[in-house]
């Protein structure tokens, strides 16, 4: 049994090994305090090109002082946080190494992460919520559509004349998920 599994592991192609490598990297960085903080930070998250758009909109929002994980990871227990982080981390890294063809065309919070996010809103905004029920809908984003990623469905750029040659330069190929 163990033998067969080991054989299977060794027969994996290089891309899988890369995946495992990066994952190990993350796990290692997680055990150092500095690494822990770093992997919570907007800089870390946006180190993935695919996170650019969400980072930019976040950075100009009222929530810019927060870190991504303030919203995107559960905070009830540390164990829960890191389990989720590892799960999500595996997902993100997998997609950016092996699974590129499976990256969704439009990024959306998964059902699980939507729940996590919502709970975080509630936790931070207790005082507002205590003061008025504020729980009419399934999620805060039913009303707060643009917190914190969607202040505008188009960047200012769209409302200026195009930069000559920009289409040729970009030719597509950006991984921006806007």
């Amino acid at each position: 049994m163990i033998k067969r599994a080991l054989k299977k592991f060794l027969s994996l192609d290089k891309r899988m090994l890369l995946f495992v490598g990066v994952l190990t990297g993350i796990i290692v960085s997680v055990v150092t305090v500095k690494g822990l903080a770093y992997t919570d930070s907007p800089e870390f998250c946006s180190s993935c090109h695919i996170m650019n758009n969400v980072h930019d909109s976040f950075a100009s929002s009222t929530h810019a002082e927060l870190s991504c994980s303030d919203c995107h990871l559960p905070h009830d227990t540390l164990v829960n946080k890191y389990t989720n982080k590892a799960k999500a981390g595996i997902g993100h890294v997998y997609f950016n190494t092996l699974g590129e063809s499976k990256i969704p065309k439009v990024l959306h919070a998964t059902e699980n992460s939507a729940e996590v996010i919502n709970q975080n809103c509630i936790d931070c905004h207790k005082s507002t919520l205590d003061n008025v029920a504020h729980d009419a809908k399934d999620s805060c984003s039913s009303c707060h559509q643009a917190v914190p990623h969607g202040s505008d469905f188009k960047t200012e750029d769209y409302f200026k004349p195009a930069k000559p040659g920009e289409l040729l330069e970009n030719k597509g190929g950006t991984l921006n998920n806007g």
Partner: protein
Amino acid sequence: SSSGEKETAATASTGLSADEISNEAFKDLFPLQYDSYKKNEKMEDTTYSGSVKRSKYDPDKEPYLPILFNGYGFATEYNEDRGHIYALEDVREIARITDKSIGSCLTCKSTAVPHMIEEMGDDYWGGNFNADIWPKAESMGHSPIGCSDCHDPQTMDLRITRPSFTKAMEAQGIDMSSPTKNDMRNYVCGQCHVEYYFDAGNGEVTFPWDNGFKPEDMFEYYETTAKEEGFNQDWIHNVSGTPILKAQHPDFETHIEGPHGKAGVTCSDCHMPYDRADGKKKISSHWWTSPLKTMEQSCATCHSNRDLEELESRVDEIQHTHMKALHKAEDISITSHYYINKMITSGVSEERIKEAQQHVRKAQWFWDIVAAESAAGFHNPQGAMDSLKVSSEESFAAIKLATEELVKKGVDIKELDEEIEKVKKAVSEETDNFKKKEKAINDYFPAQQPK
């Protein structure tokens, strides 16, 4: 940094000739966009639209068009539109093209057009389609609606290649000197997906926008400016003898006045959403088709907090309400045409006939501008319904006037109504699409078009 970027960008070039008009020349440089463009070959229906070449006279579309367009090419053959890639094939095969057709008919189909206009001037617009224009375009190696229609082949900047568009926008007082990126994402489509007519003098493709984009604005233009310049009608209706305006695909005008257009959303946002090609890279989709086939990319980017299935059923509700109302307005318009026919054959005074025909003309404009639009009402639900309402009111004004005169002449209105039902039945039961139009005319309702 941005000014530095600009300079670099401005000097970059594809290496293609500024005159390039073949899509295939772009293939190796932009394989992802080219592949995406190739998807326009796909043929797939949606509930109210789609890309399958089938007749607009089909029972689930608008079966009475052979009556409503009687006397005009649109009563002979008229199909659901499909991918850009078929534009040349479809214009070549359509029975609406006759030996009298002019060059202008090629304007929105072929990449050769901008060069032909430049070279030939007015001789392009008025040139003979079959004898001169088509062969010339073929010899130039044209493509069906292609990269060069929207892009500068050297810089790939978006550009306007059909002068009719710029002229018409400026005539409405819109500054065209430095359109924004967002504007251009509407404008490239606005070159073709618009209402047009052929100038009475030189046959030039002209857009009736001086007074605005709404149906009433364009109608006013046709009743004043166009008439002053000698354009009175597209054809004389064969049932009612009315001088009729044919409306064509006003997608741009309708969208601009609708909820999305007013919110700064553009054609390209829905019809060319960012797409992941090649499993990795993001490009603008170049598969121009129903966004209902790509809702995840086309709609979910903006409507991220809504359930997509619910959103789709919302579109369906809007379209269903719309199509039901359109069919009713068309039906009333049919009645009005036959009532006028009866006025003519009953010897009612010229003056009263003219008066009634003016209502019929207006009524037909107000439903046709809606029927010709491509989104079954979605591009502007309230605006389209408003137009249909005006149409029904005008048709009925004609019918009321006719009723008064016909009763005075002793006509039996009940019999007339029964004859109308019969003629409609004859049209819908005729299975040969090309013969339907013949069934719209009979001994009771003789043809009224001047020979």
